[in-house]
């Protein structure tokens, strides 16, 4: 087994990591970097619990090979509130009660953050499309959709 030395910017910090070719990004985040906020659900690209932002796009980290991430910029759930203040999508999910067991929540927050970064004024369709790959089996989606919509409004109001 050969190792690849990769340099990544993770949640704003530069890191060098030695990864074997068979390691997924999800495994690297959880097992090598200790970033266990990113959850391992299905490991098949179906459930979205492992969603992170890779070079600006929401991706399933279980479907990415770590070695191919050399030079990449990655944001995980730990990077959303790195300043100590919750991100707007986190605040609104809390206010709306969009969390029950919480296992899907980090993935949903990363999908929502990536959506608002690329589209600050999403329609309800855009929101539902953005979280179409995030399965929640207890809260249901209405409160989550409302929370993301309110986060978009609050961020737009703050910009004005």
């Amino acid at each position: 087994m050969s190792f690849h030395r990769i340099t990544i910017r993770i949640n704003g910090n530069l890191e060098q990591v030695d990864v074997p070719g068979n390691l997924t990004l999800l495994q690297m985040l959880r097992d090598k970097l200790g970033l266990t906020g990113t959850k391992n659900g299905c490991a098949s690209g179906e459930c979205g619990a492992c969603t992170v932002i890779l070079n600006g796009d929401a991706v399933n980290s279980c479907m990415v090979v770590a070695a191919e991430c050399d030079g990449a910029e990655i944001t995980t759930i730990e990077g959303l509130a790195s300043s100590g203040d919750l991100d707007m999508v986190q605040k609104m999910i809390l206010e709306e009660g969009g969390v029950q067991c919480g296992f899907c929540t980090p993935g949903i927050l990363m999908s929502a953050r990536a959506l608002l970064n690329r589209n600050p004024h999403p329609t309800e369709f855009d929101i539902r499309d953005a979280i179409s790959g995030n399965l929640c089996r207890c809260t249901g989606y209405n409160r989550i959709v409302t929370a993301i919509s309110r986060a978009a409004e609050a961020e737009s109001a703050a910009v004005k």
Partner: protein
Amino acid sequence: MNNAHPGLPDFVEYVKPASLEEASKFLVAHAGESRPFLGATDCIVRMRDGIWKTKYLVDVKGLDGTNQITFDPAVGLTIGAAVPMNKVAAHPAVIKHYPLLAEACHWVASYQLRSRATIVGNICNASPAGDTIGASMLLEGVLRVFGPDGYRDEPLNGFFKGPGRTNLKPGDIAVSVSFPLPPQGNSGRYIKLGRNKLGDLAIVGVTAFGYPDSSAASGYRFRIALASVAPIPLRVPKAEELLASKPIDEAVLAEAAQLAYESCTPIDDVRGSARYRKQMVRNLTRNALVDIWSKIRKDA
């Protein structure tokens, strides 16, 4: 599924060649145990589950021409092999001139998967259920392939040989897929029937495309491709010929849908029975044709 700790088998190696030549030579030298690697949305699952015994994942993303999407009104559209579906669907030229392609991309899995999944990967994996293959065939897509003997073009009509089998040989790397400018006044539809609204594989997928053409006896030409109802993505030439020769009305559109029903050979599986699939091919083909006809007919 036995995957308490999910991941690829220990023997899997990641290879990042510096050029297409290097990648092709490596793939030839390790034929049978290596494969070109794009979005990985199919191969990670299949390798982890032991369906594919691939040892070497040869990353061809970023190699010559694989990352670009270009549009020239005189020539058409070229989509690099590594361009993810979300980027294709959001591209202004695709939205304006190839909306059928954007619609097909939109039906693939979920947003996150489409951040990685590619049209060229979808084509090369040659699943009969591939959502973007029908649109790619009907828009006259041509695959640009770099192989041991250099570049060659592979038109998609005739490219598929069976489930997962294509004209590609060891050492071949699909670099891009190109589409000519579609005919004036065209309209297309992709209707996908899944077990749920988003994310599932197609039980049946119907892609149809139509445009006015004065050289056809009917004044119009239609193209039809069916997914998940045969070993390969299926064109329906008999229905296409009928619609070019007979004056179009609802009865003729229904007749064409019946020909689609008769031409497909689906199987029973967990997503649906063969009988159900055939009937849905007829209904969805008719719906797609009626919808397209309402948009392209000149006397409307």
